[in-house]
C-alpha cells in the first residue's frame, strides 16, 4: 500500500496536486489500492452469496467429502486394468496427444498470419482491430461448444474435435503472437522500411527472428493446454482417446479402480509436458539475459 501511494504522488499525470492544496495529504487510499480493496471485497461478497444460494439438492457435504477420500484411496492405491490393457491405454493417450499436437500445429500456422496482420506495428489500425475483435469472440466461446457446433455438420468424432479445438487455439495464439510482435522496437521496422525493405522482408528478417523465443514458449504452453482440452473433448464430445475411456469408466462401468489407472496415465503425461515447458521457459530466460 505504502509503495503505491508514494508512486502515485510523484506520478507525472497529477503534478499539480502538490501545489493545489497546502495541506499535507494524509489520505493513503489511492486509486490502485482502492481498486484492490474493491475487487477483493466484491469477490468475497459474491463467494459468500453463492454459498448461500447454491442449490445443494440435499447432497450431504461432509458425507460427500468422506466418500471422496475413500474414492481417492481406491483410485490411487488399487488401480487395475479391466476394459483395456496397458498398451491399449498407451495407445489411447497417444490419440489424445495426437489431437493436441494437430490442433496446436493448425492453430499456430493460421495464428502466425493473423497475428502478423493484427499486430499494430505491422498492419493498419482498422484491420488490426477487426481481427482482434473477431478472435476475442472466438475465444469467448468455450472450446467444447465449438466442437459441438462443428459436430452438427461433421459428425461427432475426431474431425469435429480437431476443427473446434483448432478454432479456439487459433484465437488464443493470435492474441499471444500479436502481443509479442508488438513488443518489437519501432525503430527496427522504421529503419528497414527506410532502407526499402518490403513488408514480407521486414516480417521474415526482423519480426519473426526477434520474437521466435516468445512464439515457441506460447505455442508449447498452448500444446499443454490442448492436451488437457483433448482429454475433456474425449469425455464430452466423443473425440476418442484417454478422455473417452475415462468417460466410459466413470459413467457406464462405474469402475473407480480403472479411473485410477487412467488418472495415472494422464498425470504421467501432463507432468512430462510441464517439465518440458519449464525447461523451455528457463532457456528463454537464459537467452534473454
Amino acid at each position: 500500500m505504502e509503495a503505491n501511494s508514494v508512486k502515485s504522488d510523484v506520478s507525472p499525470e497529477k503534478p499539480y496536486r502538490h501545489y493545489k492544496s497546502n495541506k499535507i495529504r494524509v489520505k493513503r487510499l489511492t486509486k490502485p489500492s482502492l481498486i484492490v480493496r474493491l475487487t477483493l471485497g466484491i469477490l468475497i461478497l459474491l463467494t459468500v452469496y453463492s454459498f448461500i444460494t447454491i442449490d445443494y439438492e440435499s447432497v450431504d457435504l461432509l458425507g460427500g467429502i468422506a466418500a471422496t477420500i475413500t474414492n481417492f484411496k481406491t483410485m490411487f492405491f488399487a488401480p487395475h486394468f479391466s476394459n483395456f490393457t496397458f498398451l491399449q491405454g498407451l495407445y489411447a493417450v497417444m490419440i489424445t496427444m495426437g489431437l493436441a499436437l494437430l490442433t496446436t500445429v493448425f492453430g499456430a500456422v493460421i495464428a502466425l498470419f493473423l497475428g502478423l496482420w493484427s499486430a499494430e506495428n505491422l498492419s493498419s489500425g482498422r484491420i488490426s482491430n477487426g481481427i482482434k475483435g473477431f478472435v476475442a469472440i472466438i475465444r469467448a466461446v468455450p472450446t467444447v461448444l465449438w466442437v459441438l457446433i462443428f459436430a452438427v455438420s461433421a459428425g461427432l468424432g475426431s474431425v469435429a474435435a480437431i476443427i473446434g479445438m483448432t478454432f479456439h487455439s487459433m484465437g488464443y495464439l493470435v492474441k499471444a503472437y500479436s502481443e509479442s510482435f508488438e513488443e518489437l522496437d519501432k525503430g527496427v521496422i522504421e529503419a528497414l522500411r527506410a532502407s526499402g525493405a518490403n513488408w514480407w522482408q521486414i516480417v521474415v528478417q526482423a519480426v519473426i527472428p526477434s520474437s521466435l523465443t516468445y512464439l515457441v514458449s506460447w505455442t508449447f504452453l498452448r500444446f499443454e493446454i490442448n492436451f488437457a482440452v483433448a482429454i475433456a473433448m474425449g469425455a464430452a464430445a466423443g473425440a476418442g482417446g484417454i478422455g473417452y475411456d475415462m468417460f466410459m469408466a466413470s459413467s457406464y462401468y462405474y469402475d473407480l479402480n480403472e479411473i485410477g489407472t487412467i488418472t495415472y496415465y494422464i498425470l504421467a503425461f501432463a507432468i512430462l509436458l510441464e517439465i518440458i515447458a519449464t525447461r523451455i521457459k528457463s532457456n528463454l530466460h537464459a537467452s534473454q539475459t
Partner: protein
Amino acid sequence: MLLFCAVSYGAMIFTQFNAVKGFTSIPSAIQWGISNFYPAAHSFEKLPAILNKLLETILTAIAASTIAAVFALFFSVFGSKITKVNNILSIMSRGVATLFRNIDVAAWALILLFSFGQSVLTGYFALFFVSFGFLTRAFIEVLDEVGESSVEALKATGASYPMIILKSVIPSSTPQMISWILFMIEINIRSATLVGILTGTGIGFSFDLYYKNLDYNTASLVVLTIVVSILILEYLSNYVRRVIL
C-alpha cells in the same frame, strides 16, 4: 521441418483425422450456422431460465476461484523459495499443487461424480481443485519474483517471519495475485460450461439440453449469453489490471 511434418502426419493417422473432410466441413458448418444457429423468437421465452443458470455458473466459478486462492496463498507461502519454512514443507506443497493441477478439470468432474452425484457441488469441487493447483503455481512465481529483495532487507532489520510475510511480502504481491485470480475466473467460466455438460448442471447443461433436443435456436442463445458474459468479464478484469499493476 521434415520431422515436424512426419510427426503431424503420424498424429493424423493416430487420430483418424481426415484432413480433406475436416477442412471441407468448415464451409458447410458456416453455412449451417447462418441458416440455423441464431436465436429465434421462441428461444427468447427461455431467456430468464438461461440467465438464471448462467448466474449460477458464474457464481460457482467465482466462488471456486476465491476459495482456491485462499488455500493457494497458504501453500504458496510454504512452497516459495523465498518464504518457505523448511524444505520438506516446500516440496510437499509444490507436490500437492502439481498433483491437483495436472489432473484435468474434466477428469476431476468424472472422479467427483461418484461422491457428489449430479449436483453443483461436483462442478464446484472440480473447478476448485484445478484452480487451487494452478493458483499455487502462479502465486509461488509471484512470491519468488516480488519477495526476493524485501525479505533480505527486513531480515537484516530483525523483523520476525510472520511480520515479514504479513507486512511486506503479501501486500507487495497482492496486485499480481489479484490479476491471476481474475484470469482464473475467466478460465473457470469456460471450464464450468464443460463441467456442466459432464455433470448435468449450470449453463453447460442448458446448452446440452437444447442441443440434444435439436433446438439450435435456443442453444445459440445460450452460446450468445456465455460470450457476452465472458467479454464483459474480460473487460472488467482488464480495467482492474490496468489500474492496479
